[in-house]
């Protein structure tokens, strides 16, 4: 029951918050922060209990939930099934850390705090559920929870154009989840189950697949389901040109929410692509590997070029996220171990990097009331420490060795060079482009002469420094000692690659 405990532990905070009087803003904020601690502790406990040598899915939970009778004594059974392996556990650890730090960043929320932190903690339940679920239907439910909570977090607590952003968010993601559901139902109708383990067994069963191959209708449904699922996660990742909503959310949502959005929620797209695309449909993924690589290339280069044009720091980072998701696609498209390892590394690495940078943005905005880089400049003079953090974040963003981003880029390119060398060569231009837009942003903000109005800015306080250094620590830890993340995910990825067959 450890997993369920961890997964629903943010609800403790929810219950306490509900009992608190309405007007006590500070109390709500503190309680919101405390609410993120039980999942943090439990997740680390589970991670330490997880047996890396043994690998595979551990901490399984299985409860029958409900069934839909179909007549003639048949029925569709739905079950509550949880379980984690190294892959999902890595993402869970990332989630609980970033959520706790985002709760600290949320201290600047000065309006309807109670509702904010209620939704915030519910969002965490949803995300953790997404990474724990071993049943497609359950996965879908948790996925929907993240959608609804996020919709309100953007729409109520965002910037001026928050409602437009929230609507666009809902529009895109609504279409996405409809597609996902369609795909899942296709699978259900074909195989009469939504149990991940059963499905994995069926999909790797040669005879079963041969039998399917003769049924044209079934083939069509299978391919249709696969395409639906890939599209659903492509919107979430997002893949160009489905990125508009995500740029809007980056710009309009409060920075603390963007930490979660950019750091964690986008990664559900990557996780979904790996878990339900590559792992479940090895044969079909092979067919679209080339398309995925092309899409990755477009994301990588177009995102970087667009990032260069922006003047709003949040938009720069939004397009930089588009560009970095291209690396994930590269890793997935290479369909080999180094590539997939790179994709997972990028998932976790980018989580920490963008969370760090949006934490910085939140703190910067508190001081300057603007994050337009044309208005900023020379901030290293009044704020050497804050600017140092920005510099570290920027260097991590452009993939400096010694930081997490390098490992993921290197492994993804290593993988892709083996299978699609031409695309990979073109893709390396992205390394230069990334340096161009990152340095433009970092140097414009930090370097140059300081305008008089910025000379009185205060540097980082300890309460800001500790969260930022935590994320810097994560980035450096993965960069310097990559085995800390590489070892736990190996058994899962090795199995996935074995399913693809080389």
């Amino acid at each position: 029951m450890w997993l369920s405990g961890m997964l629903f532990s943010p609800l403790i905070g929810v219950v306490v918050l509900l009992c608190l009087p309405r007007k006590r803003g500070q109390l709500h904020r503190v309680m919101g922060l405390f609410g993120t601690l039980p999942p943090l502790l439990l997740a680390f406990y589970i991670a330490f209990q997880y047996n890396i040598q043994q690998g595979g899915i551990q901490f399984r939970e299985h409860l029958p939930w409900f069934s839909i009778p179909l007549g003639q004594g048949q029925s569709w059974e739905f079950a509550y099934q949880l379980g984690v392996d190294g892959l999902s556990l890595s993402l869970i650890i990332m989630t609980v850390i970033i959520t706790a730090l985002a709760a600290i960043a949320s201290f600047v929320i000065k309006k309807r705090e109670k509702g904010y932190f209620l939704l915030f903690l519910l969002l965490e339940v949803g995300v953790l559920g997404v990474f724990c679920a071993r049943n497609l239907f359950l996965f879908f439910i948790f996925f929907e929870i993240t959608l609804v909570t996020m919709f309100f977090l953007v729409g109520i607590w965002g910037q001026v154009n928050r409602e437009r952003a929230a609507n666009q968010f809902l529009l895109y993601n609504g279409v996405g989840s409809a597609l996902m559901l369609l795909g899942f139902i296709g699978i259900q109708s074909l195989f009469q189950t939504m149990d991940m383990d059963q499905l994995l067994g069926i999909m790797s069963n040669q005879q079963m697949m041969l039998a399917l191959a003769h049924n044209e209708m079934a083939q069509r449904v299978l391919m249709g389901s696969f395409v639906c699922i890939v599209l659903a996660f492509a919107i979430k990742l997002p893949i160009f040109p489905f990125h508009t909503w995500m740029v809007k959310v980056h710009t309009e949502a409060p920075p603390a929410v963007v930490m979660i959005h950019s750091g964690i929620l986008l990664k559900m797209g990557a996780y979904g692509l790996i878990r339900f695309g590559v792992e479940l449909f090895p044969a079909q993924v092979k067919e679209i590997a080339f398309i995925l690589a092309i899409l990755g290339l477009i994301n990588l280069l177009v995102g970087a070029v667009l990032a260069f044009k922006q003047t709003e720091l949040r938009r720069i980072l939004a397009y930089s996220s588009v560009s970095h998701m291209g690396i994930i696609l590269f890793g997935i498209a290479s369909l080999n171990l180094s590539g997939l390892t790179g994709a997972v590394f990028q998932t976790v690495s980018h989580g920490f990097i963008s969370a760090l940078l949006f934490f910085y943005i939140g703190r910067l905005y508190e001081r300057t009331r603007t994050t337009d880089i044309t208005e900023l400049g020379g901030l290293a003079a009044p704020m050497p420490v804050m600017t140092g953090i920005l510099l570290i974040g920027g260097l991590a963003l452009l993939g400096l060795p010694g930081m997490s981003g390098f490992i993921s880029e290197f492994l993804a390119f290593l993988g892709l060079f083996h299978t699609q060398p031409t695309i990979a060569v073109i893709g390396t231009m992205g390394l230069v482009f990334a340096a161009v837009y990152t340095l433009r942003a970092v140097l414009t903000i930090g370097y140059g002469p300081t305008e008089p109005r910025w000379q009185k800015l205060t540097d980082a306080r300890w309460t800001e420094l500790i969260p930022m250094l935590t994320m810097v620590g994560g980035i450096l830890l993965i960069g310097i000692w990559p085995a800390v993340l590489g070892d736990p995910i190996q058994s899962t990825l090795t199995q996935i690659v074995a399913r693809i067959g080389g």
Partner: protein
Amino acid sequence: MSDFAWCIPLFPLLASLLLTMGARRYSDGVASLIASCAVFISAAISIGVLMETLNTVVPTVHHWRWLSFGDQSITVGAEVNQLNALMLVIVSLVSFLVHRYARGYMAGDRRMATFYAYLSLFTFSMLGLVISPNLLQLYVFWELVGVCSFLLIGFWFYKPEAKRAARKAFILTRIGDVGLFIAVILTFWQVGSFEWEAIFAAISANKIPPEMITLIALLIFVGAVGKSGQFPLHSWLPDAMEGPTPVSALIHAATMVAAGAYLVARAFPIFAASDVALGTVAYVGAFTAIFAATIGLVQNDIKRILAWSTVSQLGYMMLALGSSGYVAGIFHLTTHASFKALLFLAAGAIITMLHHEQDIRRMGGLWKSQRRIGWLFLIGCLAITGIPPFSGFFSKEEILTAAWLSGRVDLFLVGVVTAFLTALYIFRLFFLVFMGEERGKIAPSQIPRVMIWPMVLLTIPAIGAGFLAWIPAHGFSDWLTKGTGILAAPQGEAPGWIPLLTLLLSLAGVGVAWLRYGRGAVTIPSQSQSVTGIHHLLSRAYFVDDLYRWGIGKPYRWLSILLSWVDQQIISGIVSGVGALFQAGGRIGSRMQNGQAQTYALVSLLGLVIVIVGLTAGRWFG
């Protein structure tokens, strides 16, 4: 001692961490002391390691597992061989002297501790680079030295020129690094390992197709071109002079920029297996050497002249390596490190003396008042010009011999002409600064002793390093190549007239410089006088920067504007249209402020409808 080689880089790293964490707490003296002590320990161990390699030739390698995927295991570690040991000593010694010197040069700067933190971090990275036993680890440190260089060029962050120079350095070297990046990956898929040993073994066993070897070698060279400021990625190096002068001495003259030459030397068996690659290295090197030397003739900023000279001298090293003159290249790297560091430190002393005046047109006549600096600078000039017995003579002579023996007469001639140009531009600098009347308006101030003695120590190798070539029975080249299977130099008998010719041309260069600039009576063309033709071409460095601006920079900006327009107008436009349609129908947004419950109900309802539709639709396939 070699067993502890892996901890050589760690002392500067530790110092850097200490200084970063307590940047505001340390006084200038303490900060300088921490950093200098750390580098001193590294230097001491490095010398011990070098002593050991004099007797044993078996490389010592240490490995630790770093990351595994599948059955592949990537390791990190430390390797000590002759080349690495030599580089360790060069880097740590020059770094130590520069650390001490900077105490005087940077006096009064509020961010002294930060400066030393960066400087130590650089030393760590550079030492880590030279002990890397594999290509991936080398790439990691390769990038780290690049970033330290970037940080130090932009150390005076409030200066717009420093900001621009730092960005330029980072981006141009990164373009080169992409080449190296691809080379690392290609090598892995060819060899199945990043280890140098495995790579060399695969090459000698003919396991890699020849075209692939050429491709890998050329890509490695692209990395070296970026780092060592070779044409066409050279233009960041002169701009890098915006950094503090100790940085120019350490990073942009003696060590980091030489990393490109080191890389080619380290990967020499790969180059040696491909004539195309060797030829490319030689031609690019020779072209860069003469190209930069001509530009150096007309510059007026004392540091920029030295920077162009560095580009030119690095070209010499590449010319040597490309002509199979393995030892000659490394030899010149060694001598150049000492005399160029000396020249930069002396230039820094002059700049300090004149209160940050860098324009040589406003100097002059310093010999009378500043005899001590004058001598130090003169020793550097004689060494780079190649007047015996100063070190540059010996290494340059070996390079030209290698070029001659490799059978490329054109390259040999370019090398000889460059020797003449070198003498000309460096003595133009010397005479304009030290001879004639004083053109400056400020009275020179005194130089603190902490800046003098590092220069005095540097004169020892600047004068004496050349005699390495005179160790009986080719001691130096035998030692350097023992056990590596690399030929020390191209086969053949070196003609005796080469050193004589070089010497005569160098003297001619000094003579011309004396006639034109030495007697003090010559008026210096001031900016008001129109400079046209060749002079303009040279002073603008052949318009390479303008070419980049209009050929790459602007088009990239236009591309970004175009794509941005497509993104805003077309992609977002379609979405906004659809979104507006939805909004008109549902008016979801307006409800959000006042009617949470209703909105939530609506959203949930939407979800439920989807679920029900989905479930019933599913039955059709059942």
